[in-house]
């Protein structure tokens, strides 16, 4: 059975027309899927649909918990919380409201930070960490949450090259656990790295292995006039907008 199975999904905000339609794909445990598309293409809408935040038609079947890992600057960087405190937020949903987080949860939080290589920064304020470190702390939170499916919103935005490599290594580690990663990105070259790619432009344009899916036609349908051909024949997106939630 697929860990994520989406059939004929259409999603809309309120009573309006669907902003995303005709989405059908599935992903097995251990797979990473790039969700590729321009601003307004439906990447965030797909994530919100998978989280059950908006009404959808069609069917969505997900095995286990889903964690959403936002862009780090979407969190309040001025809020007084440590890296360990953020990791422990992954235990909130499983802890009754009347019970304090105990030693067991703290050990899980510390272990998650150790796994992302930040145990020594556990007491540091989240907002004082670099973009790449913050991203890793948010990944630690999803580990504490023990989510089977991770929805990652532009995880490489604002991250330096060294941190990007560290995060990619972590993604490989998470895939080895059997987790499914859905990685929203604008970056075509980044999308080629993963097992599958889902192209969205208000609808599903294409889905499959990058080598066969990222064709000139699919990229032009996904990005329209934004796509340019580089000298070496590769395609790139001409305008790199900031990501915006609808």
């Amino acid at each position, binding site marked *: 059975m697929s860990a994520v199975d989406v059939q004929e999904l259409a999603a809309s905000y309120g009573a309006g027309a669907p902003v995303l339609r005709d989405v059908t794909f599935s992903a097995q445990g251990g797979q990473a899927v790039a969700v590729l598309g321009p601003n307004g293409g439906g990447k965030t809408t797909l994530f919100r649909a998978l989280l059950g935040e908006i009404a959808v038609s069609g069917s969505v079947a997900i095995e286990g918990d889903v964690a959403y890992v936002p862009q780090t600057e979407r969190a309040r960087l001025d809020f007084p919380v440590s890296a360990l405190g953020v990791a422990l*937020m992954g235990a909130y949903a499983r802890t009754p409201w009347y019970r304090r987080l105990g030693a067991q949860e703290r050990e899980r939080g510390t272990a998650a930070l150790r796994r992302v290589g930040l145990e020594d920064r556990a007491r540091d304020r989240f907002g004082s960490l670099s973009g790449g470190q913050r991203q890793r702390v948010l990944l630690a939170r999803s580990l504490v949450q023990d989510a089977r499916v991770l929805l990652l919103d532009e995880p490489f935005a604002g991250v330096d090259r060294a941190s990007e490599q560290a995060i990619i290594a972590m993604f490989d580690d998470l895939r080895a656990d059997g987790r499914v990663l859905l990685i929203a990105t604008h970056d075509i070259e980044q999308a080629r790295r993963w097992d599958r790619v889902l192209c969205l432009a208000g609808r599903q344009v294409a889905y499959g292995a990058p080598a066969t899916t990222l064709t000139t036609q699919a990229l032009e349908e996904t990005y329209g006039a934004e796509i340019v051909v580089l000298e070496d024949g590769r395609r790139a997106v001409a305008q790199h907008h900031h990501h915006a939630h609808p």
Partner: protein
Amino acid sequence: MTEILRSGLLQRALLEVVVLGAACGALGVWLLHMRHAYAAESLAHAMLPGLVVAALVGVPLVLGAAAGVLVAAALIALAARDTRVGSEVAVAVTVTSAFALGAVLALSPEVPARLGELLFGDLLGATTGNIAVACSLAALVAAGLAFGHRALVLAVFDPVAARSLGVRPARVELALLALLAVAVVAAVQGLGNLLVFALLVAPAAAALRLGRSVRGQVVWGAALGGSAGVIGLVASAELDTAAGASVALAAVAIFVVVAVIRPRSAAGPRRRSPLETLGAGR
């Protein structure tokens, strides 16, 4: 000062203001983190007609305050639903209208209470019943903050991911505004319609500069709020000044002192439009 403290009148007032100050100071920390300072001021001011009507009819002011808060919140929400109006204008128009209506009613000869008592409170006139009501409502606020701590943390720190972690930020914000209404209702009899705002915001603003964690900030907020009550009330007895106004000035003085000692806030909230609070989408 020992003689002052022996006065039963002042002892009751001290008890009430310490409890209210602690509850308002702790609540204020979360209001500032959620950037709802303007909501606090709006709700406090917009309840004036309810207070005046309660005085006219002869029911406890606390009931009038509760009705005033509910009507004001409903009017703001209703007006803000109209996109041609918007939440900012809705809050401003509702608060101004409610305050003006309250002043007109209060100046009618049928109103037994003087307008000044409604606007500035009457700490020294606190009865045992007043204190019991204030303590009960303050306990409700404290319990809400304690049991809702984790939900508040997620709703403030990471509202985008909160739902996947089991928390609905919009509901948390509504719950916080409900606690605000409870605190304002509890404090208005003693501190008045205009001055309650000082206890909600000034100690909390100081606490944000002192606490290294949000729990620490909440504890600082409660301690500074209670201290403002004691300092203000003792000063008012010594200097023969208005009690409510003295407490408000003490709260602001505490903030100024802390701001001088600790000019950089380790965790101060970012500035944004103050009116992104009540109304549409809330």
